[in-house]
């Protein structure tokens, strides 16, 4: 059978909502980062899906996704580095405790 676009989009949305939920509720920065990655990946997925279904002839969506994955990797590396540094200086990765810059 021919899969409609919905079959692809629904998982993507579920993934995105999971990401949002995780981002809001988690207090651990690593968990937040993972949630962020989930949202990012769902967006990537959407790019691919729409490219495949709406503009089958072109490849921009695919290329853009690859681009985004590369950026996301760099970003994650940066975030992890910051988190590790925070952990080193205050001994915790809880967001509620990293409010030193506020004062």
């Amino acid at each position, binding site marked *: 059978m021919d899969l409609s676009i919905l079959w692809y989009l629904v998982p993507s949305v579920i993934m995105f909502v999971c990401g*949002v939920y995780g*981002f*809001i509720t988690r207090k651990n920065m690593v968990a*937040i980062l993972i949630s962020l990655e989930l949202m990012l990946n769902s967006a990537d997925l959407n790019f691919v899906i729409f490219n495949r279904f709406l503009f089958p002839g072109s490849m921009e969506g695919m290329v853009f996704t690859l681009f985004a994955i590369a950026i996301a990797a760099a970003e994650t590396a940066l975030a992890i580095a910051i988190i590790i540094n925070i952990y080193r200086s205050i001994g915790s990765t809880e*967001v509620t405790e990293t*409010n030193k810059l*506020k004062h």
Partner: protein
Amino acid sequence: MDITLPILILALPIAMFLILGIGGVKMSRKVAGVLGILGMGTTATLAYIVAFTYFFSGNPDFIIDGVRLQYQVFDVTWLAFTQKLIVNIGFLLDPISAMMLVVITTISFLVHLYSWGYMEHEPGFQRYYAFLSLFSFSMLGLVVATNIFQMYIFWELVGVSSYLLIGFFYKLPSAVSASKKAFIVTRFADLGFLIGILILSYYTDTFNFINLTSNPEAVLTSTGGATFMGASVLTWAMVLIFTGGMGKSAMMPLHIWLPDAMEGPTPVSALIHAATMVVAGVYLVARMFPVYCVVDAAMTFICVVGAITAFYAAVVACAQIDIKRVLAFSTISQIAFMMVSLGVAYDRPIEGVHYAGLGYMAGMFHLFTHAMFKALLFLGAGALIHAVHSNNYTAMGGLRKYMPITHWTFLIGCLAIAGIWPFSGFFSKDEMLAAMFARHWFWGAWMTMVAGLTAFYMFRLYYLIFWWEENPHYKEHKPHDAPWQMSLPLIFLALVSCVAGFIPFGELVTWDGVPYHIHIELPVAATSLSVAVIAILLATKMYRVKNDLPTKVKNFWPTLWEAAHRRFYWDEIYQFVVHKIIFGIICRSIAWFDRHVIDATMDGMAKVTNVASNSIKGMQSGNVQAYVIWFFLGAVALAGITWLCLV
């Protein structure tokens, strides 16, 4: 007429003021004193020349066919309000201004001389002479004013000079408050004067005296019959202008400042508060006389105010202890006399009266003689105070042996003011009473009674100072006559008071410039003379030697005596109104309103802003997760709206 002399008459005193005021600090007393006296002496000489030229030269500018004219020596624009309303500074010569020139410069010169002795040991001697010069300048400017606004300008200036001189001993709180009171009370009266000028000038389109007085009917018609609250606007204007005169001349109910003004040095009281400034009100009415004549209501108002004041002040003078206050109330009473005299005069012939302008002439005559003998009395009082260092007659008594010059001159002053022939007061008072009787017997009778009271309180004062009982303090500190600088003016003024009555005043000063030959009205003269003699005899009986008659009289109705002594509580009433009502209620409530309503509204607006921003600032927590919730909800809401719109 050459304008040099008139300009110098005004310029010399103001130049003296500037020289002594600015350079006085660096001068010795002697230099300052000599400069002041010389300056005033020169001014007096010039003023005499000008006045004599006016009266006796026969120049057609001044007199045509025996009628004296008003002549503007110069009149330069000072400030142009509109095309027509222009304030000039000028020099008007006419009978009354020429007479006032003589009076002011004479008294001022004598006071300058007298002060050299009297103020010898006071600090601020130079400043004192500077202020005297300022006063002389302002007063001269006032009397020669060519227009009502110039008069107002100098009117204010004499007010300030009076303020400065009353408060001369500025370290004494009583002097400070007296000067303040004098200024504010007269300022209040000047408000009326100002509004009167505004009304008058609005309708007549001129400030100039000659324009106003040469055709009073035109003034009357210019208002076009406009009325305000039942009275014509011209009545309002003239009554309000007279209010200014009431303030300066200390008429009831604006008289309260004058007795307090005696806190100033005694020569100042003689110059300002007896001879010159306080008669400015009379002078103002005389200046505007033709206009007043067409406003009957204003004339009646002047008479009533004058009559009440004259009686009130005479009664109060009988119960004062401070000799300067007795003289002050006597001044009030005598000025009120002049006011009534002007009030009963007419500018047109009336049936049964041989000369309708008699009151005017008599008022001016009395102004002249009163200036001389009242200055004499004040300067005499100054000599007494100088000798015994107290203002109260309780510290005096039996002084006739110690201070013969002062005694004799003071006696002459008393006889003059009491109206005894042949002293000057008799002649002028007789003419005034004649004018009053001619208008209505009531005014005549009432003022004769006041004249009797005058004789009584003056001789009460005289006996209590020079007879009664010798004060025991004299043994330690023997009083003696004043130095020559002080005695000389006394003697001079005493001589003037003896002979001034024989001046043919009516030939010189009348309202219309037509000479009038004075003759004694025998019935009136006999009445007033006998009343005065009876009053003097009564005073002699009561006060010549120490006895308990005065105490008995006093205890006959102690409340009345106390009330008269406290000046019928006018000061208390004013105190209450000013402090309790104006300061206590009006000012305080306005200040409160400003702080607690207007300011609070502004602060309240700031507070509302603060509270509002405080209440929403919690949303910016810095917590990214909270932002995400808001962001997510917002995105959902937007999606929902978009969806709704699309469907």
